[in-house]
């Protein structure tokens, strides 16, 4: 089930808390599933003593993946035709993130009705960690 074009307006928005109090274990879980074992995401000794960061931080792709859940919950399964983001700030253990999508356009292309969305994910300090865009097919 997709969204219905005739019920959508530019400026409509949807948001979800995508993670509360992000754990180091979830970051490790993502490393295992994605195959990205960069020690900056899981190795406290390496990241503090060698890389020079205060602690481990999340993969950008984990934030993109969690933000994607908000998107598919909004537009429906299998409806995305494009999803792209910029990672604008790091995400740390303990962060609580809220992802938001806003309709920027409703349009027709090749006989399909599409919506363009502007996406942003912010942390508990209302700092942007991710910004982006998506396009989805609607009914």
């Amino acid at each position: 089930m997709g969204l219905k074009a005739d019920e959508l307006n530019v400026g409509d928005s949807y948001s979800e808390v995508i993670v509360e109090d992000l754990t180091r274990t979830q970051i490790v879980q993502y490393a295992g599933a994605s195959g990205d074992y960069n020690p900056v995401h899981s190795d406290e000794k390496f990241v503090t003593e060698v890389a020079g960061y205060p602690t481990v931080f999340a993969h950008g792709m984990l934030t993109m993946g969690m933000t994607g859940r908000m998107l598919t919950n909004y537009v429906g399964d299998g409806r995305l035709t494009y999803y792209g983001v910029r990672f604008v700030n790091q995400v740390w253990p303990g962060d609580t993130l809220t992802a938001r999508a806003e309709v920027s356009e409703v349009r027709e292309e090749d006989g399909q009705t599409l919506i363009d969305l502007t996406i942003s994910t912010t942390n508990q300090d209302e700092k942007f960690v991710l910004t982006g865009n998506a396009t989805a097919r609607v009914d």
Partner: protein
Amino acid sequence: MAVERFPVEASHILMFARSIGDSNPIYSDESHAGSTEVGSIIAPPTFAQASAQFDPDYFLRPKDGQKWFGSGGTASGTLVKDEDKDDSKSDDEKSGSSAGGLHAEQHFTYHRHLKPGDVLSAETKPGESWEKESKRAGVLKFSESITEYRDQTGELVVTARSVGVVTEKVIEQ
């Protein structure tokens, strides 16, 4: 990166969906998925990135017989040994933080969504590169790569565009 064979499997999709905290049954429950317009289990939108698991040369995975740059007995398995304090070494060689740099952007265009049973191959080509000055991290060196994922019939299913950045210094918090 070139991945010759990336078999998309239901158990991998389940683990990936769990890791992003997504309990949507479209990623795990065949009978539920069969009753939706999608018609089968599909993979979450960012799943193509897990092709790293099937890239034999992927440098962010420890490999048998090779030194790993994360900590073991010491903070780093390979990087920042005494001789690396030598100024003739590039920042890349000295700084653990720039081992692979940071991920700046990621874009996916979906020609169709991935599902268990797909056997993908992926070919990556370099894109543009550029530099930018930043107050928090010094000179930023960006480079783009484009990866095309094709299924077993050769059909293009996902196009990915990735931008990586290598920072001159650790980003100030």
